[in-house]
């Protein structure tokens, strides 16, 4: 089974600074948002844990274990501190 897909990633705040980018396309074989984050965390040394983050897929909140599909836009959301 070929699970290769291309995902659009956008980064904000702490993750944007740690990645050094606001957005990128990425080829991945991760099945879920959680798997994708673990891949990114390993590669870029993000120090936030998955359980500290929320996930948005295609512009709305989604479950961490939601499957991701080719062409999806995925955003990992650090703990919010607005207001």
């Amino acid at each position, binding site marked *: 089974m070929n699970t290769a897909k291309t995902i659009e990633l956008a980064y904000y*705040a702490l993750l944007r*600074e740690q990645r050094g980018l606001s957005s990128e396309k990425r080829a991945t074989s991760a099945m879920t948002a959680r798997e994708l984050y673990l891949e990114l965390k390993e590669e870029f040394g993000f120090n936030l*844990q998955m359980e500290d983050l*929320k996930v948005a897929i295609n512009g709305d909140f989604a479950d961490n274990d939601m499957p991701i599909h080719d062409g999806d836009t995925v955003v990992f*959301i*650090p703990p919010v*501190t607005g*207001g």
Partner: protein
Amino acid sequence: MMFKIFVNPLEKMDLQSPFSNSEAGGFVSFEGWVRSENEGRHVMALEYEAYAELAEKEGERILIEARDKFDIIEARCGHRVGRLQLGDMAVWVGVSAAHRNEAFQACRYVIDEVKRRVPIWKKEYYKNGDSGWLCPVEGYAHSPPERDGGSTSTA
């Protein structure tokens, strides 16, 4: 109902102008201002960053929840992004209602939920040259203890 991210300074008069309504007897507003101290550190400036698309969507949901939960007439919220100086307004919430009890409760609900749920982040710049994204996560560097549901350099 309207939740909006602003790149330019929040103008109270503009924010409040849609509220005129002869059935409203009470209007409650909250303003969050950049203050000079947080957790004993001297704050010089703040920077807010938003995931604007989702922030406005989630903010709008909060305003609709407020209208469903409380007997109010109108509720709006504006949140500033970019670099702010001491005393600048970071967030504005306004609620009108026939009766003041509902206006107070709904205004409080909106600001509490905005702080809890809307994807906006704050970076503090300190007098000693340090800066950092606030990150209320246990064990993480910038991790202010909870107060009123999260103490930060606004209220």
